[in-house]
């Protein structure tokens, strides 16, 4: 009873969080919404006062470059997140079997998380360099190829390379969260299943996997929350090129907004991209809430 009487307390407790978010996210978003309705150019501050309605958005509708980047971003996210999930699951299952010295292995497993995205970008730019890159040199030394593979140029290879870099950086996040899921798993159903003569695959498929799916959704949610970090990687590795083959929404927006100084147009693009990330996050979040219910927790 006393808990419910204190009506203002939760709001008071939440106010620092809400104020910070309002200040750092909401207010700037309103500002950029406004500028997306103007022909705002960074180098012409006065242009912010000119209202042009939805013209920037109308231009987007028949901007094929933008929609290609949009589609490519979705492709990039889908492949990267699924790969990260599968690899992370594999690693988690493996580490889960270790009983001794696990803390060291877990720290090694998290090693890629120590790398700043900008550093990951430089790292893979050099690794994938066609002439002096370590990868081509290794392949040539091993006699696997006698050509110089243009990792960052060839159509599919370029996409592959940036996805590889992103997956390398973020698989650990999945692994650590899925490992937490495996740790939380009650042992009884597993034992019971074994006694009943289930194969390891059946155990995994029908007991382990459903149990850790919520953890997978958490990982998906967390990752889709800050997946735009991939901007740093792609910008350094390919800058969206060549010929736009690796152009993602974020590289496009940065170029239009800063290099071309067309901030109004860029913010219209950014708004569409914000909606995209919110949808991704929303999708995983509802899955997560459903999974939590299924687990019996109060969401």
């Amino acid at each position, binding site marked *: 009873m006393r808990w419910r009487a204190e009506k203002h307390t939760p709001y008071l407790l939440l106010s620092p969080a809400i104020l910070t978010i309002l200040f750092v996210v909401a207010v700037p978003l309103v500002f950029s919404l406004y500028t997306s309705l103007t022909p705002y150019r960074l*180098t012409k*501050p006065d242009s912010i006062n000119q209202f042009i309605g939805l013209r920037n958005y109308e231009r987007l509708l028949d901007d094929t470059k933008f929609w290609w980047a949009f589609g490519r971003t979705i492709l990039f996210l889908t492949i990267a997140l699924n790969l990260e999930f599968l690899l992370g699951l594999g690693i988690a299952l493996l580490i889960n079997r270790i009983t001794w010295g696990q803390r060291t292995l877990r720290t090694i497993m998290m090693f890629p998380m120590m790398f700043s995205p900008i550093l990951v970008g430089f790292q893979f730019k050099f690794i994938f360099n066609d*002439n002096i890159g370590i990868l081509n040199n290794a392949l040539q030394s091993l006699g696997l190829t006698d050509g110089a593979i*243009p990792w960052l140029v060839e159509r599919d290879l370029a996409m592959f390379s940036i996805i590889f870099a992103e997956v390398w950086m973020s698989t650990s996040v999945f692994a650590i969260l899925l490992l937490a899921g495996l740790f939380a798993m009650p042992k009884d159903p597993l034992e019971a299943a074994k006694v009943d003569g289930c194969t390891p695959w059946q155990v995994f498929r029908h007991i382990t996997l459903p149990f850790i799916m919520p953890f997978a959704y958490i990982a998906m949610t967390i990752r889709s929350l800050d997946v735009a970090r991939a901007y740093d990687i792609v910008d350094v590795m390919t800058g969206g090129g*060549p*010929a*736009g083959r690796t152009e993602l929404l974020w590289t496009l927006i940065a170029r239009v907004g*800063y290099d071309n100084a067309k*901030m109004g147009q860029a913010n219209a693009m950014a708004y569409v991209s914000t909606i995209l990330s919110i949808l991704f996050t929303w999708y995983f979040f509802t899955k997560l809430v459903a999974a939590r219910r299924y687990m019996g927790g109060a969401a």
Partner: protein
Amino acid sequence: MRKSFAFLASAAILPLMLTGIANATDYGKFDGYTLRVKLIGGAQYEPLYAEIAKWETATGAKVEILSRKNHFELDREIKQDIAAGTLDWCVGSNHTSFAPQYGTIYRDLNGVIPAETLAGFDALAIKNSTVDGRLVQLPRHSDISNLFYKKSLFEDQANKDGFKSEFGYELAPPETWDQVKDQAMFFADAPNFYGTQYVGKDEAITGRFYEMLVANGGALFDEDWNPTFNSEAGVMTVQWFKDLYDAKAVPAGVLNYLWDDTGLGFASGTVALNLDWAGWASFFNDPANSKVAGDIGLVRAPKGAGGKRTGWSGSHSFSITETCDNVDAAASFVTFLTDHDQQMVEARKGLLPTRTQVWTDAKKEFADAGNDFLVTVFDTYKVSMSEDAFTPPLIEPWIEVSNEIWPRLQAAILGEMEIKAALDEAAEATRTIMEDAGYL
């Protein structure tokens, strides 16, 4: 001890212009004043900044370096400053290709810097620093590209014979870009060795395309700013890039290359011919960094089909903001940084001076020290700076236009689009930009 030769000379010739001399030799007194500046950072630019302490001692002022970033980062920062109205600093590094974007945030230096000081600069450098009749920057050092090559390849008898029988003329350092193409294809042996290379993205490839277009007799724009680069000369130019790419005479990754990749590539000894900036010369000839040290030849940039040489050029420079609260101190500072002695500091690192006198003095110093390579470098670059140099169009939307052009160049080189179609599309997009910017 190394008292400014130039000023002694000008003092003798121009005894009446005492104010100018006074400004140049003693830089005024600004005790207690703090000058806020934003400078371009990076290894080759830093030695000059070590000299700043001298100016501080001479004038009693302090210099506060607010930021020191590479040019693209600095460009972004300055645009943010314009947007946010935070131009609360006085001196900024600038570049001839970037300057037109910034509108009128920078002051016209005519009248701020005395005419007799300006007279010491290369006339072409001053002209290229002028936007819409306003001298918005004082050139610090200039740059232009010439053709470096691996000398031993051209002296090898087997190469000479082989080349002659295949192409029907003598193997010699190339005079035209067609010869470069022949030789590059002749020397190439991918993936171990490449004939030549080019930068393949961003403004870098736009610039290379542009200078080649001009050399081939074409132009980016006509007199009324209509885009004209989708001409026959334009197609021919892109064809040159594409032929080399298709023949694997250039590294397969060139379309992702920028200046560091091409420079390091030539230094690694795996490239025969390399069109590059003067700033690399010392690096290429330094055994600690480069495998081709001691084996480098250098010729003036070759000619295109139009009989003109390529000569895309630009200058790093310093500008003073309109909002500056102490223009005299700022003017004194930029004068100091571009003075004879300071340009000598940069020239010794292989950067190309913008003062005529420094060319002479630096070359003499190299010759006295027995550094024949740098003498050759200075001789070659001196000619190309005074005869071949031209800037990209000094228009506000240059970078934006470039961002329309280079992805299409890449698409054409990769064979994703027909060359003509790619250039047409780029020209159409460029037209829109020029219309929006009020040029058309």
